[in-house]
């Protein structure tokens, strides 16, 4: 018996009915990505803020008080503890009561009025908690800029060279705009998880045998399931994009058609791997652990969502690029914010397509052999 499009359609219809019949499953595969996106976006959209500041003023002059006022003016840094001894700052950092402390040396006001000499530039000491490195480096960058600006305001001379910073695609560097498109790639792994579970469930419950006894062939069965889940996945990709644009006002500068096309590309890669996992394992429990292992946890940590892919080490590039989310994060950020076309995204789109075609073909072959 050869491959029949009619039987394929029948399987697609059966699967779609299966998904839409159970309200809870329907919610989980179509709307839960949009729902999770809302929650995660609020959590992840952070800009340096609410930094608890420790303060030790060894100078006690009008200048040092003006400096503290300049640092805390906009509420990003909040004075949490004023110390008179250095040791008190250290123990406050150990206990986590403050994130960073500023220590103003005696003679600060005098030195600043005199200006930098050939041997020394007046300086303030920042004592920081390095145990949270990424946040701390952002906090220190921010503090240094404020300190330099305070110095420059008092300086009689203007600098011969200054920088004119410009952030493209996101001029005021709102982290919400960068996180929401990135998180799309994380929440849209849920449809792939649902597919793995659907296949392993049939295996575990023994309903797969019943299907094998019907005239439906292996490839028709698998492709039918795949198509049904890609279709429901497109519904969830549209819902999530609508939330991003309408709720979070993230600009959508590229083409929506390209977004959907590349979402299919991403689903082929993630669902292809999910089908492979479903071939390998016997129980839904193992399938879940494998999906957590392959998609979910690495999705947050090595996909470039927060810190960029470490391109200086080959092993880390290999691991990050093997993960479909890495490519889809680059794609969604580019389409939403940069508005670029397929030409600029060819590398990521191509790698996703290779993963998708390879994993779907392998699972089709493996499946046919097992029941044939």
């Amino acid at each position, binding site marked *: 018996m050869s491959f029949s499009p009619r039987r394929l359609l029948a399987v697609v219809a059966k699967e779609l009915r299966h998904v839409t019949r159970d309200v809870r*499953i329907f919610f989980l595969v179509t709307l839960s990505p949009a729902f999770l996106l809302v*929650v*995660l976006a*609020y*959590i992840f959209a952070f*800009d*340096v*803020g609410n930094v608890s500041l420790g303060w030790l003023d060894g100078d006690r002059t009008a200048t040092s008080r003006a400096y503290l006022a300049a640092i805390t003016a906009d509420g990003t840094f909040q004075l949490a503890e004023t110390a008179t001894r250095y040791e008190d700052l*250290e123990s406050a950092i150990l206990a986590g009561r403050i994130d960073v402390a500023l220590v103003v040396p005696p003679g600060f006001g005098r030195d600043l009025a005199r200006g*930098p000499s*050939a041997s020394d530039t*007046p*300086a*303030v000491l*920042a*004592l*920081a908690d*390095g*145990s949270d*490195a*990424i946040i701390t480096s*952002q906090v220190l*960058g*921010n503090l*240094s*800029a404020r*300190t*330099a600006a*305070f110095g420059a305001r008092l*300086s009689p001379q203007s*600098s*011969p*060279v*200054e*920088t004119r*910073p*410009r952030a*493209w*695609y996101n001029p005021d560097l*709102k982290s919400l*705009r*960068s996180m929401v*498109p990135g998180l799309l790639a994380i929440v849209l792994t*849920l449809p792939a*998880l*649902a597919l793995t*579970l659907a296949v392993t*469930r049939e295996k575990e419950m023994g309903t797969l045998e019943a299907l094998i006894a019907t005239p439906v062939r292996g490839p028709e069965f698998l492709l039918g399931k795949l198509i049904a889940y890609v279709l429901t996945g497109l519904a969830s990709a549209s819902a999530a994009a609508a939330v991003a644009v309408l709720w979070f006002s993230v600009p959508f500068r590229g083409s929506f058609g390209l977004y959907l096309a590349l979402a299919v590309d991403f689903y082929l890669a993630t669902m292809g791997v999910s089908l492979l996992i479903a071939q390998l394992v016997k129980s*839904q*429990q193992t399938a*879940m*652990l494998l999906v957590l292992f392959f998609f979910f946890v*690495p999705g*947050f*940590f090595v996909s470039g969502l927060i810190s*960029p892919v470490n391109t200086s080490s080959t092993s*880390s590039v290999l*691991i990050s690029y093997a993960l479909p989310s890495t490519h889809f994060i680059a794609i969604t950020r*580019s389409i939403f914010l940069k508005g670029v076309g397929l030409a*600029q995204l060819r590398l990521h789109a191509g790698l996703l397509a290779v993963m998708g075609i390879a994993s779907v073909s392998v699972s089709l072959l493996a499946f046919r052999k097992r029941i044939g």
Partner: protein
Amino acid sequence: MLARIWNLAVKEFIQLARDRLMTGFLLLFPVGQLMLLAVATGQGIRHLSLAVVDFDRSTQSRAFIQALDNTPELEWRYQPSSEAELAGLIDEGQAAVGVVLPDGFSAALAGSAEPVAIQVIVDGSNTTVASTGQSTVDGVLSDFLGRLAKRSGISIGAPLQLRAEIRYNPTLNARLFTIPAQMGFIVYQVTLAIASLAFARERELGTLEALLVTPMRRFELISGKGTLAWLLGGLDFVLMYQVVTRVFAVPMRGSFALLLACGLFFVAVEISYGVIISSFARTQQQAILYVFMLAMLDVALSGYLVPVKNMPSVFRAVAAASPLQHFLVIIRAIMLKGAGPEIIWPQVRALGVIGVIAGAVALRTATRSLE
């Protein structure tokens, strides 16, 4: 009673041992994932790809580019000849930071021309990258001007500096925290996955009735199921601790006994959550999707990627109920800061409160769902 709980735990072990793939997986998965993530996790925001358009082409401009390249944050990869070419590199994501040195850069430095501005273009589609790029270029410029001033004896620019002294991790190497934090995440996933399916699986396969007609009381049934997840979680934790300290050389500045005690306590609290899910879900598929959603939220709320106090107040309240969040603070405090019990007491107390409440809810819901 203890004997009956133990018997059920033994039954669970035997059942698990029959599923070879699952057993191997439960033991190798945590360590494997830890290795993988640790290898791929960078030290923080380092080696951002830099493109410089140099319209000045002087010794000074080359020295400045060299100074940018010498920072750990930036790596000079491209020298486009025009701003249009630079725009292409940023659009394609090849370059994360672009710097345009104007004609007249060296003349301005020598004081013989009008002040000039260096354009610093960053890719704002990733804001952490963008702000690091900007502040690094600013820092390099202010150092560069300071060195010039010292050499020429005149004071120009940058009259006030910030000198940082960083505790526990002077080079701000992100891996010192990200790697031990993974222990928390991985133990969390494994135990939650086992516990949440404890009853859902038996119910779906129809073997739950058989268990219910045994003389075991409901409480014993729940404890017996939980014991397996607890022991496996503890074992995984110890294995991963060895990898973290030996393979990745993360320092352990506090007491291992204290960390292990907190770890086992954390796993027990986590299992209560798993049992609650298990009693709500009718099928394994539902249980798994609930776990997946809970895990996503918990990772987000854990304070690992975003500090808890930067979250909106609703989420701060929810984060307080997340055992993972408290446990990560404990790991960081014990391993990196060498904190003793008095420092981590607020977190331990929070875990205790969550544990008592979640445990009571778990017993109640599970007992009901077994009727």
